[in-house]
């Protein structure tokens, strides 16, 4: 306190040379008032006004005398606020007195006007702080100046007044409570966001420890740090409070430096917790984002189940029977040579986008786009009995969807395209493949390679399925004659069939996966 606030006579040597003239101006104001009172004004109303004016002048004098010499921007702002409030009172009471003074009492009028003038001169020596000095809503970058909204619970009037004054001068917003009941009432008020509570252990109506327990047992209050203040120098008491969740402990008489340091530290920790809360909220937002994004490549049902069981996305994999579907645009390389790059991208996006929607609607997962090819999986990450049925139905639906693709292409002035589709069922390793930083859910195994080989021989508009897929089907599908496929890298002959899908009624997506 002593080094920060100076007595009036010392102010001449300080950073604010105007402080001395300020003090003397207030002294002039008081002299004017004293002579004014001697005039023994007539009406009780005027007497009342003059008394109030005297009080207002006292307050103004105090305010000017105790101007902080070195203070944080926040402290300076608080002082200026206080100062202008006092100037306001002096101006208001003087004007009121002037209204109550009849013109005949000339001396009184002249004195009051002199007071007004001094008051305005005083005001003009302290202009408002420019906006850039400090923005009120932004936490100051300098952590020494961290301020917050504090609740002081202390029954002793003098102690409470001193504490509040110290805290206000440091730039904090301070609420007071004289008793436990009052403290609880203030805490119940949900609209008050408190940053810190200073709690006296000994209160007339309640034990400070009870209040501490109440705070720590109430979800909405738990996060507010509590610093206990007590006259008792007992370690056991300290331990009891800290165990009950008190942030810190101070003994009376409270050392101001220690108080400031502890409050700063508490507010600092709270600000980190607040930031953590904000971060968690952001995380929850991004969770929703993942759900949405993931939903583009897999059915929302699967995305939700994955998010609910994040261990399902651990690195590593499992052996699973899946049905893989691969599509390809016929003559894509030729198209690329004829079209502009931008046109190729338009065409591809149209094709991949439309077919992805179909895959997702049948409960499949789009595993990969490989150039103009799509690899879709049915049965991983989550398997069900009708994986093969849905995969074949999906393949047929994709061929039907080519009409939609081509209508869009024509509208854009792009050529019509045709696609070939291969379906195969077999055991694969499914899991997250890649490094910790970059990995994706996928399938690997001979079965996937076989799908690609079948795709190689599939022609325009074809849906070719392997013997394994045909065996896995629960519903009957009309297929053509068996074809033997002997391909490079395969150690055995694969039997494949072309699905007669134009004869098959366009299957609806299964209800389980369709919304």
């Amino acid at each position: 306190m002593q080094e920060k606030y100076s007595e009036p006579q010392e102010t001449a040597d300080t950073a604010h040379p105007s402080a001395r003239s300020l003090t003397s101006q207030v002294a002039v104001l008081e002299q004017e008032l004293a002579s004014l009172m001697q005039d023994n004004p007539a009406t009780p109303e005027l007497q009342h006004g003059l008394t109030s004016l005297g009080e207002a002048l006292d307050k103004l004098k105090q305010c000017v005398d105790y101007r902080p010499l070195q203070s944080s921007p926040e402290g300076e702002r608080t002082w200026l606020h206080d100062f202008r409030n006092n100037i306001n009172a002096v101006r208001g009471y003087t004007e009121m007195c002037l209204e109550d003074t009849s013109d005949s009492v000339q001396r009184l009028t002249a004195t009051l006007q002199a007071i007004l003038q001094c008051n305005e001169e005083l005001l003009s020596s302290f202009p408002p702080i420019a906006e850039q000095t400090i923005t009120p809503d932004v936490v100051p970058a300098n952590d020494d100046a961290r301020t917050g909204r504090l609740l002081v619970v202390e029954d002793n009037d003098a102690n409470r007044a001193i504490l509040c004054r110290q805290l206000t001068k440091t730039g904090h917003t301070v609420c007071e409570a004289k008793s436990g009941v009052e403290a609880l009432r203030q805490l119940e008020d949900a609209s008050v966001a408190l940053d810190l509570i200073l709690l006296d252990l000994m209160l007339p109506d309640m034990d400070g420890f009870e209040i501490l327990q109440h705070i720590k047992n109430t979800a909405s209050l738990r996060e507010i740090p509590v610093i206990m203040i007590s006259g008792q120098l007992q370690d056991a008491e300290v331990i009891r409070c800290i165990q009950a969740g008190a942030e810190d402990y101070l003994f009376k008489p409270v050392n101001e430096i220690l108080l400031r340091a502890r409050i700063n530290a508490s507010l600092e920790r709270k600000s980190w917790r607040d930031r953590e809360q904000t971060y968690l909220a952001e995380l929850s937002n991004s969770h929703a984002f993942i759900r949405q994004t993931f939903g583009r490549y897999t059915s929302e049902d699967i995305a939700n189940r994955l998010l609910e069981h994040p261990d399902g996305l651990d690195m590593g994999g499992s052996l699973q029977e899946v049905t893989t579907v691969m599509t390809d645009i016929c003559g894509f390389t030729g198209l690329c040579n004829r079209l502009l790059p931008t046109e190729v991208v338009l065409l591809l996006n149209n094709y991949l986008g439309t077919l992805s929607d179909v895959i997702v609607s049948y409960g499949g997962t789009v595993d990969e786009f490989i150039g103009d090819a799509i690899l879709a999986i049915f049965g991983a990450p989550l398997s069900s009995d009708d994986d093969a049925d849905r995969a074949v139905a999906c393949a047929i639906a994709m061929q039907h969807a080519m009409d939609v693709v081509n209508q869009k292409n024509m509208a854009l002035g792009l050529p019509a395209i045709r696609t070939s589709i291969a379906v195969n069922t077999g055991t694969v390793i499914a899991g997250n493949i890649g490094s910790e930083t970059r990995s994706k859910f996928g399938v690997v195994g001979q079965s996937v390679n076989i799908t690609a080989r079948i795709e190689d021989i599939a022609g325009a508009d074809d849906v070719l399925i392997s013997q394994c897929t045909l065996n896995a089907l629960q519903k009957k599908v009309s297929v053509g004659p068996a074809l033997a496929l002997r391909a490079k890298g395969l150690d055995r002959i694969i039997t494949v069939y072309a699905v007669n899908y134009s004869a098959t009624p366009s299957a609806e997506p299964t209800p389980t996966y369709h919304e």
Partner: protein
Amino acid sequence: MSSTLLIVEDNEMNRDLLTRRLQKKGFSTVLAVNGVDAMQRLDEVDVDLVLMDMNLPVQDGWTTCQMIRRDPQLQHLPIIALTAHAMTNDRERARAVGCTEYETKPINFQQLLGKIQKLLAWQTTAN
């Protein structure tokens, strides 16, 4: 019938001063010492206009104005912000939280009176 003004001000002297001067001009006054108190008064009494100090304990005037503007019953209530004008951007902030008018301390009483009368006249016309 005289209009009722709610004065929200924590500084005792300024509260007393405003009350006395406004009563002299024929207004009824209701007092509140902080934002929470103000919301309670607004709940209990029909008020025609609010004079709100912005720097208040417990709940400041900025928050309180926003709460008033969010309340369907109160959203059209005229609010005159009173700030000590310690900062040059107080006026913009007051506008941002939904205050109708703005006066800085020390208050120019005649000017404040003019604003009160103008806002009350508008309200009467609107009703």
